[in-house]
């Protein structure tokens, strides 16, 4: 029955996405933006290579705003409407509610990502790409979205206000990007020893996402994203427990 609780919540939340026009608006914006970054900013055609590098490169930045837009309401809305009281007095554990809500949004993001499949068709039609690399890029992108989402889930539990939840989440994610973003690490290496730079960069989603784009599925990168998700969801649980204790 314990898995049933999680699945019921996933179903409810997912259904919630598709009855609201906001979800469709989100999907359209998501697809337009990925298209824009891939083809215009990323110079997809001018590159003259059959790969999705220009597609995946932008995902950490694209998700920086799009994922918090999905995650910001997760718990803040439950708090604002008082449905949290309803949900958490049902015969389920708090972690089941957290996991269920998280999974539903993650699945929604995965659906959005899956809808980018025309780029795969395009690149296969134009040339002869390594589809293994593309698959690995998608896996990395889903994990990246999951980590961002878990962070947004955490910030959404901190406040009833979705806007504050969004801003907090963007700030934390920006930090997670920048500590491994090349221009920043270059700057950092002028003052700090290479080991320090490396340690800081190890916390960055950039460092770990890069390998996936190159088609390298390293268990350490998977573990990194899984740890971010695990840590953020655990912290969500701690925050909710604190809220209830008053």
């Amino acid at each position, binding site marked *: 029955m314990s898995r049933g609780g999680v699945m019921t*919540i996933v179903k409810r939340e997912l259904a919630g996405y598709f009855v609201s026009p906001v979800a469709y608006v989100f999907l359209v914006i998501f697809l337009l933006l990925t298209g824009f970054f891939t083809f215009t900013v990323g110079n997809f055609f001018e590159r003259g290579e059959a790969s999705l590098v220009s597609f995946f490169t932008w995902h950490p930045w694209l998700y920086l705003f799009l994922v918090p837009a999905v995650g910001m309401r997760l718990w803040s809305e439950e708090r604002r409407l008082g449905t949290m*009281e309803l949900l958490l007095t049902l*015969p389920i554990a708090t972690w089941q509610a957290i996991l269920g809500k998280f999974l539903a949004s993650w699945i929604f993001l995965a659906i959005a990502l899956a809808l980018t499949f025309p780029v795969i068709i395009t690149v296969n039609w134009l040339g002869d790409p390594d589809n293994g690399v593309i698959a690995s890029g998608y896996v990395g992108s889903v994990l990246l979205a999951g980590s961002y989402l878990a962070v947004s889930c955490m910030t959404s539990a901190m406040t009833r206000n979705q806007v504050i939840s969004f801003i907090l989440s963007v700030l934390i994610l920006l930090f997670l990007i920048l500590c491994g973003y090349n221009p920043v690490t270059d700057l950092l290496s002028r003052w700090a020893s290479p080991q320090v730079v490396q340690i800081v960069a190890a916390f960055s989603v950039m460092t770990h996402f890069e390998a996936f784009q190159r088609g390298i599925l390293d268990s350490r990168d998977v573990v990194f994203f899984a740890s971010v998700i695990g840590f953020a969801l655990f912290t969500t649980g701690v925050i909710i427990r604190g809220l209830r204790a008053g």
Partner: protein
Amino acid sequence: MIKVENLVKNFGPKIAVNDVSFNVERGEVLGFLGPNGAGKSTTMRMVTGFIPPTAGRISVGGYDMLANPIPAKRLIGYLPENAPSYADMTVHGFLNFAAEMRAIDGDARKRAVNRAVEMCMLENVLYQTIDTLSKGYRHRTCLAQSIIHDPDILVMDEPTDGLDPNQKHEVRNLIKRMGANKAIIFSTHILEEVDAACSRVIIIDRGKIVANGTPDELRRRSHRAGAVAVVVSGVSAAQLSEALAAIDLVAKVETLSETPAQAIVRAHPQTPEQKPALVRAVLDLIAQQQWRIEDLRTEEGHFDEVFRSITLPDTMKEARP
């Protein structure tokens, strides 16, 4: 079924619930009364496992709410204050969700939803989105959610809030009916509801239980309980009062009104139980004096008066530092 011992809840320095203990057994309907901010909702939130107590024990159907929350919560149906629900769902979808979360599947779920819909009279809005419902219907939707699994224990925070008079009446009857084989706690600000539905009442004020008893017991605390008011013509109020005061049973007389044509005087017995004896004595007196009696009213005591006398002096003290 519900056993609460020495419950305490602090919010920072504020003591919201202070050493509250009570039991509710199957077949009992416990009414929770108290001024705003008394701690009723906070107590209910602890009983239903939404917030942990600062101190104290809660046992629900034999399960400790802190140590073993899931089986305890399975037994409870809960209508939170302000009746929250998922606004983007239809009534039907929401009730299905509630049933599924309670692990009611297949045909049983269909039956459970139908039953709750019928009991809360939601047939007309079944496929309407909750955020398009009127307040009363939203409230009933959340009420339906709380009884979807036919729970042994019901906790309802202001179940008749926002309902029209007919619906209030229906919901009271529903509570009373269900109370026959469930343990129910509900809070209210409507004192008639206590009479209409409760078998026992707890009045809570600033976190503490200040009264606990059956509605009749509490009513008898009213200083008017058992009083007899008579309307007599052809006699002055002073004369009537004097004669009534001379009766042994009478503790106090009050003149309620006086016109040249008639006087209205109320006599209070020493204890509410003396009411029948007092009625006889008053009638004997009037017959003996050959006064013309126009009307005679006896008082059962008033809840609002008891409520005020228990909770008001203290709040006034607080207001005057």
